[in-house]
């Protein structure tokens, strides 16, 4: 697969079209694997879309006791193998991006597999197909990047931990080669210090604050 995903949170309008469309992919029919989180609805309408970044060395796979999470040859990190997954949720809480979800009734972790039924055949994943603004885009690096004024970055630092991913984050600045995440003090210059303490009730009502990544149903 030469194509990959490009995520540009700046463009996200928070419509959650991707969340609805995610359910239409055959590898996880009826289950949505994407997150669109408000930063803090009280402050801004800004939202953060999160899909699996498909790490080169996925933490989720390493922490899996059942060795159930596999990578394809083209670097896509798959949903846990159904016969193996023990529903231990190590991956859910180890993932630096907060991506894997779990369904306890089914004893199963589920995560974005880049709609492998579609992407392995050259079709766009559902989220990237429907995303109105191109906040989620699927394509070849050489096709997508020249169209954008943002800089593709596929290296995250969480504290000291470098995480390299198959998926690119489109940075709004040309200066960075990586994005650094270093705790929740980061945003105080942008949002009020109280932010994050208490989510807006709207986020609650939408199930946005179901912090455990559990499937409801």
């Amino acid at each position: 697969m030469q194509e990959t995903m490009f995520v540009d949170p700046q463009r996200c309008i928070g419509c959650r079209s991707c969340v609805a469309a995610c359910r239409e992919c055959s590898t996880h029919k009826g289950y949505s694997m994407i997150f669109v989180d408000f930063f803090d609805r009280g402050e801004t309408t800004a939202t953060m879309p999160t899909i699996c970044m498909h790490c080169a060395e996925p933490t989720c796979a390493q922490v899996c006791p059942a060795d159930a999470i596999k990578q394809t040859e083209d670097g896509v990190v798959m949903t846990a193998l159904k016969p193996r997954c023990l529903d231990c949720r190590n991956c859910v809480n180890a993932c630096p991006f907060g991506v894997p979800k779990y369904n306890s009734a089914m004893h199963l972790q589920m995560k974005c597999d880049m709609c492998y039924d579609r992407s392995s055949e050259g079709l766009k994943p559902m989220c990237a197909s429907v995303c109105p603004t191109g906040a989620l885009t699927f394509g070849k690096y050489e096709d997508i990047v020249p169209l954008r004024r943002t800089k593709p970055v596929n290296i995250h630092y969480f504290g000291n931990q470098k995480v390299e991913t198959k998926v690119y984050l489109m940075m709004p600045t040309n200066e960075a080669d990586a994005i650094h995440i270093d705790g929740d003090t980061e945003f105080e210059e942008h949002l009020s210090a109280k932010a994050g303490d208490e989510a807006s009730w709207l986020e609650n009502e939408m199930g946005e604050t179901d912090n455990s990544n559990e499937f409801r149903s």
Partner: protein
Amino acid sequence: MEARPTPQKLNYRNPTIIGLISSAVLTALVIIGSRNLENFDSALFGYTIASIVAFGAIAFRYSVWLQRPATRIYFKRGLQLFFNKRKFAKSAKSAATSIATNLVEQRFIFKRARQRWIMHFFIMWGCILAAAITFPLVFGWVHFTLEGDMGYRAHLFGFPLILMNGRSLIAWITFHGLDISAVMVMIGCAIAIHRRLNDRGAIALQQFLLDFVPHLLLIAISVSGLMLTASSLWFQGYMYSFISLSHQALVIMTLFFLPFGKLFHIVQRPASVGVELYQNRSAEAEQAICPRCRSSFVGKMWVDDLKKLVTELGYDYRLKNGHTLQDYCPRCKRVMRGLAYAKAPDKAEPVFYGSRVGGPNV
């Protein structure tokens, strides 16, 4: 400053020893159980050897698996919690419930899909039935003697059991147990293969060796087993020895396949009993509080174990503020990453506020 996960070094010495010991123990059991091979059918020698080797291989593989740091933690914790004296009764009850719902009833497969549960039901119980019949026979633990015209007597470890009328229903079921199991397995595998040929999700993900070969082997074993019955019942033993050899070859291949592919879940799955115990216990105990949103999202014991595990794997997710990334709930991890993104550009052009030209909003 960069931390990278260290590749896990696997130790093969201990698993090899465990594997060899397992094989030796099984060999000893075969010898003892068959009264010094008195009741052992030498025609089944090939099966016996294959079983002993496969058993050793599974033990080897299981030991290697337990070396995964994640597995080891769950394994240790599971045992530790189970044998905690004060809560033993509770743990035993929890484990019994888990065994009943997860391993016997397999409710979780039903939740995944009803068709899947039916498929798995047929394959699993077919295989268990077949194994329950064949292994004792192969190992010489059970054998039958003819008493009178129609009387069969079963012997377990050489001890005589009840006498059956050879024309009774029970006898018919007993002697056709393998045929019944073969039919069950074939039904289950047919459902599985049908799904794999039609479900677009499965089609995208499946690999021939991992997902089809086990089913094909099981079907081949079932078909050749049924052919043996047919040959002896209706065709006066036509090609019996050839079919028998083929059947033996297929069974041995499957036994050797057990430790590697999809079928390893048979020995792996029971670990879910321990995992569930661990989770139940962790949910009752102190909860971890996400330092950002202040919600309790998982058990503290669990997060602490997970952090140790992540460190042991060579990751360094410690943040400047003294927390570890895994201290945060999944949602806050996502939001924090977004906020880091928002902070990235020049301050004059905040990404998530309007008015890039000019000052802050009215």
